[in-house]
């Protein structure tokens, strides 16, 4: 049953990513065409724009959701590709373990950064 559960959540995560990352890409890379969520003008990665977005709880929350969904989706995809190389079961356990631990570490770090910058931006 585990593969069915993981695959179903892989698909759900993909749809979540499509929406949130779609917005992220529109904000960051279609700025000259759409010009959304960049109140200070200039480039989307200018500090003023970064702070303006980080102040909003909406962005802090969606960053964490996107982080979790993308890590799960991407690492499960990588695991599928590695498993389909026809590796042995011992190696499969090792790969799963490394990906789970690495994914959790990246999630903890990224979620901390999103929340810390949210708190920091509100004090500015």
């Amino acid at each position, binding site marked *: 049953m585990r593969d069915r559960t993981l695959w179903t959540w892989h*698909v759900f995560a993909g749809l979540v*990513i*499509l929406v949130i990352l779609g917005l992220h890409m529109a904000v960051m890379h*279609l700025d*000259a*065409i759409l010009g959304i969520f960049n109140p200070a003008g200039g*480039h989307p990665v200018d500090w003023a724009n970064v702070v303006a977005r980080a102040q909003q709880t909406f962005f802090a929350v969606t960053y964490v959701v996107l982080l979790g969904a993308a890590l799960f989706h*991407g690492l499960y995809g990588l695991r599928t590709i590695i498993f389909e190389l026809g590796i042995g079961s011992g190696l499969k356990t090792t790969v799963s373990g490394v990906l789970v631990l690495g994914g959790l570490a990246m999630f903890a*770090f990224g979620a901390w950064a*999103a929340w810390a910058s949210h708190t920091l931006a509100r004090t500015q």
Partner: protein
Amino acid sequence: MLDTNGHPNRLGLWGWLGGGRWGLERYLYTLHRLTGLGLLAYFLLHIIVTSARAYGEEAWLASMARVTGPLFVVGEYLVFVAFAFHGLNGLRLVLVELGWAIGKPIEPVYPYRTSVDVQRPLALGVMVLAGLVIIAGGADFFLLH
């Protein structure tokens, strides 16, 4: 009994890239894997690079300074292209793999019309859509800045 161990006769990775009929969906499958791996690699670095904003303006500017220049712009555009393809092709795959875009079982009459033919317009449609997003992104990346 039968000694068949000498030659494995498996297509191996060549089977992922080609090996059969070379249909459109086979290329989309390969591209989906490659773009997925590329996006994952970028994403892991992206988490580390952009986390600098948590340390304040100076750390952010220092981090951004490390990833500027024409090479990074082109690299970021490739990530944008990969996302446009992977996302829209992924949407097709959700519709196909959950059985919405492949049609009902039919009586097979030669020449066979398979589920691959049923979802082909969708495959072409999402590719056109991805193309439009990629062109819009290209204009934003290279012309409007």
